[in-house]
């Protein structure tokens, strides 16, 4: 079983791209007792080396990214409001009215009262340039006491469980971090390297340098991916569905995955009685895009937890998918490391 308590702790931390410190610190503290060597690289990736019972036949790297989408303060107005840019792919329809946290201060993204809007304005999402964050400052000077330009801004929302569903902020990709951290804490058959990456959401930047440094022959990327199994979305557009197991894609917008590993994942799932699904639409992308073209090429597979409302203040995953993703990742890891890559 994957560790929901750890997931909750990881989701309670802020780690907007470029500011992943709190998440890294938590993982470093947690995993140091289980690692043979643990280091932070120049960009802030956390690299965890751990020996298993045997030397591997294939050097394997398993990664998850620590960063989350959010906002960054670009300007403070004379009235003490904060102007911002988005960090990572945020749908501007979900910004208006949300509570945010900036440098330890609560704020809100305000919108014009509906009473004062005319016709079309009421039906349109507000452009990012027309939104601002209000932290309660009376003027610029008071705001500057609390916040600096370049401070990152995270969404405020809780963690809750209802039935077999988990709802939280930043499940993308703290769910992956929790799964990979779980593997680090387990007994390994073979030596492996685990990487917690920075800056995935702004262009797979952490994974690129981590893969260079680690020089793996094969990689497993543990992620969250868009599930659009919602009322009103046709079957052909749902991408994947909650409750139908981890998602192993053959292709997305960043990567054509290793075909043998793709098939291996489904075979291992079948043999071990796990549900497993693939992406039924070429959508999204993840650190695999940077990893599979590292140095002379890395055979790469991805295991993703299906997640509704990715990149919004509150996502939703199914606990059984999260558990099965951890089991499948462990099975894949052992099989890949135990067989020659070429």
């Amino acid at each position, binding site marked *: 079983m994957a560790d929901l308590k750890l997931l909750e702790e990881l989701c309670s931390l802020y780690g907007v791209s470029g500011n992943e410190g709190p998440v890294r610190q938590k993982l470093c503290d947690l995993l140091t007792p289980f690692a043979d060597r643990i280091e932070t690289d120049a960009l802030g990736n956390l690299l965890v080396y751990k020996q298993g019972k045997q030397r591997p036949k294939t050097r394997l790297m398993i990664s998850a990214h620590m960063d989350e989408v959010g906002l960054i303060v670009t300007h403070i107005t004379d*009235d003490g409001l904060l102007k911002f840019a988005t960090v990572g792919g945020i*749908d*501007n*329809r*979900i910004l*208006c*009215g*949300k*509570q945010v946290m900036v440098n330890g*201060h*609560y*704020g*809100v*993204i*305000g*919108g*014009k*009262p*509906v*009473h*004062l809007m005319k016709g079309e304005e*009421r*039906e*349109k*999402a*507000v452009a990012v340039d*027309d939104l*601002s964050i*209000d*932290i*309660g*400052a*009376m003027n610029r000077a*008071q*705001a500057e006491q*609390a916040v600096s330009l370049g401070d990152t801004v995270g969404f*405020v929302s*809780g963690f809750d469980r*209802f*039935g*077999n569903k988990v*709802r939280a902020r930043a499940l993308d990709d703290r769910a992956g971090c929790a799964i990979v951290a779980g593997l680090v804490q387990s007994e390994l058959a073979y030596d492996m390297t685990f990487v917690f990456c920075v800056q995935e959401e702004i262009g797979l930047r952490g994974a690129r340098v981590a893969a260079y440094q680690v020089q793996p022959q094969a990689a497993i990327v543990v992620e969250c991916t*868009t599930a*659009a*199994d*919602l*009322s*009103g*979305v046709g079957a052909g*557009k749902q*991408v994947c569905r909650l409750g139908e197991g981890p998602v192993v894609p053959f292709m997305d917008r960043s990567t054509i995955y290793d075909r043998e590993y793709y098939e291996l994942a489904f075979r291992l799932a079948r043999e071990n009685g796990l549900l497993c699904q693939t992406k039924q639409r070429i*959508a999204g992308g993840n650190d695999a895009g940077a990893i599979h073209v590292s140095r002379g090429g890395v055979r790469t597979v991805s295991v993703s937890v299906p997640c*509704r*409302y*990715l*990149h*919004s*203040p*509150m996502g*939703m995953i199914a606990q059984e998918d999260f558990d099965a993703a951890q089991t499948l990742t462990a099975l894949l890891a052992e099989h890949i490391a135990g067989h020659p890559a070429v």
Partner: protein
Amino acid sequence: MQDIKEILWEICKAPGSPGQEGAARQAVKAVLEKVCPQAVLNDDPMGNLTAFLGDKHSQNQLLFDAHLDQIGMVVTGITEEGFLHLAPCGGVDRRVLPGSPVDVYGKERLTGIVCCQPPHLSDGKAEKVEPVEEMYVDLGLSRAQAEEMVRPGDAVLLHVEPRQMLGARVTAAGLDNRAGVAVLLRCAQLLGGKPLSCGVTFLFSSREEIGCEGARVAAYQVQPSQAVVVDVSFARQPGVPPQKSGSMGAGMMIGTAPSLDACVTSRLIALCKEHGWDYQMEVMGGRTGTNADVIGITRAGVPTGLISVPLRYMHTTAETIDCKDAEYTAQLLAAYVQEKGGALDG
């Protein structure tokens, strides 16, 4: 500011969708028990709550009103997949709905998320926000599970925790009009135990957001000799012109309009000047869009005034006020009662 903030926190936790104000009413009663145990409480069939202080035989019977309900939504059905259909209940700003956590008041309180289609599926229509009737709430339940817990007509409210911001500013769900409710409760606290030569009825009215039905029947029942309504109004913010707004933190907004009573208004202003309280004028060309519109024409007519707490981002999840503005509004109301017993003798 501590008293009014504590009151706000207590009453903002309780839901009060129009027509389903029960929990909010209970929260108000619990606060009254603490801050003004002398008040005589009365519930009516429309969901209104009144609290009476002072002399019920006096010629001067003041009514202070603040509406207890907040904008909300209502469940209209359940889809094959177990998602909920919605309709607005009051002037919901649909732009804040996608991706927002909500509470659904079914057999028990359930949490859900208003579905937002992922950006990669919006086919270039990302600028358009669907009407509320075309949105869904995801409870993470199957249809059968959802039908066990939820029925059409159950209330849905946006889930927002109250938060302290810088200085005396706070954000919370439904500050429209829990800010006004807090003002009345704080006023009751200031007046509790003091000898009063007039009667004061605090009215926590239902159903304002769908047409002021609560205040209409309660004012008939109370038969006041004059009334002051406390609500919220637009505070200056981006996109809101100065002639339609007041400044947050710069004092209460005293309404003046053809539909309001000029003597009540003048007296409110005179008291502010006397006590050195900051105030701002809010001028409206006809009616006010508040309970003052219906209270003023109750029975043979009631001279009615209006005070508003400036509030930013009205009808969104980001409603924000400055507690100073609310505190001085409460003090103004208390002074209004205590000085001259509320008599309108010029």
